[in-house]
């Protein structure tokens, strides 16, 4: 047993950090990764091999796992990398695990080279995070399938080549995932205004969209595939939020080391020191949770569900706490648009409410714990 990363994994992290640059994002009030820098970001990340990481070698990838990506995802959080990168990664995992041979063959090689972008459409306005309550449905008219329904907060849907849409199949067939081409007739996207202006989210409406059978992930409705996508997304969000919190902690510590009041560095006051220490402990514990969830996901551990939900809830609570405290120790300047700290707070909030919020995941934790104990619930 070993709960640490190996040299290659740290080196991968370092190369990603080197490319992204480790400056605080959003200084001067400019949106991080807007315009041209977003295009360079995508091709740079592709050149680093991030998109090929999860793709098996036979499809031109590196055949790595989420453990190899945990530190990289943390870097994406630190640098406020827009969500389309991570959406493509978690969709890749779903295709590798659950895709049919044809789906793998047609998509994975293009994903590995960064040619294909995917976005996952899971959450609905009324059903929220509850998959059983989804209104979006795929209905068969005997020969063909049709998709109807709507999703909210689909990350960067307008940039995606394909949407991976969660839907019920009716008739006791459970739910599953279908590929929908973004430009397909009957697909309507509307950019939503959200708390986080540094990333785009869309409402996606599907009106009688034809779904050929080969566009159903794994060929048949698969609740397992949908659950996997949800868990992978939640785990990735945990790592991203850990990165956000880590960067805010570092920025805050740097600031209180050079800001003076009452003729002293504010970092010498215990009131500030103790806040920083609490932030540091929270960030370090958030790493423990995020890394363990990544390992559980990669290895299919028996406590996978619990591990994922522990990470999503704890990393979410930590990111919220650290972003709030980070602004507090900066004082008035922390509240300004131009300092840019709010971009971290905003990203943390978006992630906190994506893929199940902390309350949702804590309910999963207690259900799993009672199941493990064999206690009637």
């Amino acid at each position, binding site marked *: *047993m*070993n*709960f*640490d*990363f*190996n040299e290659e994994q740290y080196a991968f992290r370092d190369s990603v950090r080197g490319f992204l640059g480790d400056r605080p994002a959003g200084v001067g009030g400019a949106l991080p990764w807007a315009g041209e820098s977003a295009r360079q970001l995508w091709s740079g990340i592709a050149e680093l091999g991030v998109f090929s990481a999860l793709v098996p070698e036979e499809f031109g990838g590196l055949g790595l796992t989420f*453990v190899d990506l945990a530190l990289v995802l943390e870097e994406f959080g630190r640098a406020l990398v827009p969500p389309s990168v991570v959406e493509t990664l978690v969709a890749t995992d779903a295709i590798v695990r659950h895709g049919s041979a044809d789906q793998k063959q047609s998509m994975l090689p293009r994903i590995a080279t960064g040619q294909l972008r995917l976005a996952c459409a899971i959450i609905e306005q009324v059903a929220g995070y509850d998959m059983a309550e989804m209104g979006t449905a795929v209905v068969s008219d005997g020969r063909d399938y049709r998709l109807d329904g709507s999703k909210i907060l689909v990350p960067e849907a307008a940039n995606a080549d394909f949407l991976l849409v969660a839907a019920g199949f009716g008739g006791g067939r459970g739910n599953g995932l279908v590929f929908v081409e973004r430009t397909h007739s009957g697909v309507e996207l509307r950019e939503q205004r959200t708390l986080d202006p540094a990333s785009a989210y869309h409402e996606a409406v599907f009106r009688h969209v034809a779904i050929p059978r080969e566009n159903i992930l794994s060929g048949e409705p698969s609740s397992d595939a949908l659950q996997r996508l949800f868990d992978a997304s939640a785990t990735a969000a945990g790592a991203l939020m850990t990165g956000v919190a880590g960067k805010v902690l570092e920025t805050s*510590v740097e600031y*209180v*080391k050079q800001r003076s009041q009452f003729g002293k*560095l504010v*970092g*010498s006051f*215990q009131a*500030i*020191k*103790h806040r*920083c*220490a*609490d932030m*540091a*402990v929270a960030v*370090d*514990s958030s*790493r*423990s*949770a995020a*890394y*363990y969830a990544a*390992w559980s996901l990669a*290895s299919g*551990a028996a406590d996978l569900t*619990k591990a994922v939900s*522990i990470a999503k*809830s*704890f990393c979410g609570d930590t990111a919220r706490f650290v972003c709030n405290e980070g602004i507090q120790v900066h004082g008035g300047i922390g509240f300004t648009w131009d300092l840019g700290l709010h971009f971290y707070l905003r990203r943390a909030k978006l992630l906190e409410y994506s893929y199940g919020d902390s*309350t949702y995941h*804590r*309910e999963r*934790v*207690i259900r799993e*714990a*009672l199941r493990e*104990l064999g*206690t*009637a*619930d």
Partner: protein
Amino acid sequence: MDFSFSPEELKFRNDLRQWLIDSLPAGWGKTVFEPADEDDRAHFRLEWERKLFKGGWNGINWPKKYGGRGATLVEQAIFAQEMAIARAPEGLNIIGRNLAGTTLLKHGTEAQRERFLPKILSGDEVWCQGFSEPNAGSDLASIRCLAVRDGEHFVVNGQKIWTSFAQYAQWCFLLVRTDPTLPKHQGISFLLVDMKTKGISMRPLKQISGENEFNETFFDEVRVPVANLVGGLNDGWRIAMTTLAYERGPEDGLGRQIRFKQDLERLLDTVSKLRRGPASAMDDPVIRDKLARSIVEIEIMRLNCLRSFSQAIHGKPRGAEASMLKLYWSHAAQNLYETALEALGPLAPIAGGDPLSPADGRYQLGFLSSRAFTIYSGTSEIQRNIIAERVLGLPK
């Protein structure tokens, strides 16, 4: 990163499981529990520790020549987990094993190790810790307990406080001032003292839990052989920092995590069986959320310890980071016992011994005892100073 077990490790686990089945009383953890009386419990724990030793399961990570079995990190983690599953009792000689032993392994002479280590594991010699004084709490380096060299002895005069288990201890490791003229961190030495030596007396201190683990210990012209000095003269502060790094470190944390996890699992069981109106108390979404929060926090305590372990194995020096572990777990555990009482709701005030008391007052005792977690082994305020200054580099 890998949490899976090799065939050898699985064998280790199965051997331990079998040994626990054979060695724990029938019905253990379900119908049979530790004695309620504190003194009886101390003796029960000492007997259990001796049993562990005879089975080859005490101090498993220590070198074989001192009575351990040279266990790997994985085996230690398996051990912790299996003890939790079996709800096995803890030993009495925690201070001997975790603090005296580890400090001697790092800083003791070979003669000192051979003399003291085997008897710690066998349970023949229980240890207590003489660090704090009435006027040296958080400011530990201001200790005044004086040791003056007289031939082949030091003569010790002074007082220690919060000496846990002194009433059961045969030995004490003691921080003493050996040179009052030096700056306060530099004039301190680390002595091993036989508790039977003439001139030692103690007075029990009743704690808020009603328990009596603590003592005040008095030293009046106590003669300690020079051979019982650990490290160099006036080198005691450095050695005490090793002791504290272990006291706050992952070995200690992992052992404690077992206890908290046991209490938490028993709590889930208790709450599931508790009726509240027409339903189970476990149906209350507020209680569920709070319990889940504790499950999350106590599991992360385990993960923090395992990560810290792995980093230590890969050569990262032990130091101020241990304060992060301790600050984290002490508050997580306090939250757990507060949640426990909240979950019991209207029954929470009923104390152990009352026929209607849930889990015989276990969570009341846990709650009261947990108030000490953020005070002993360095208060949370001291831990935060250490983290801020030595981990984050904030100015003094």
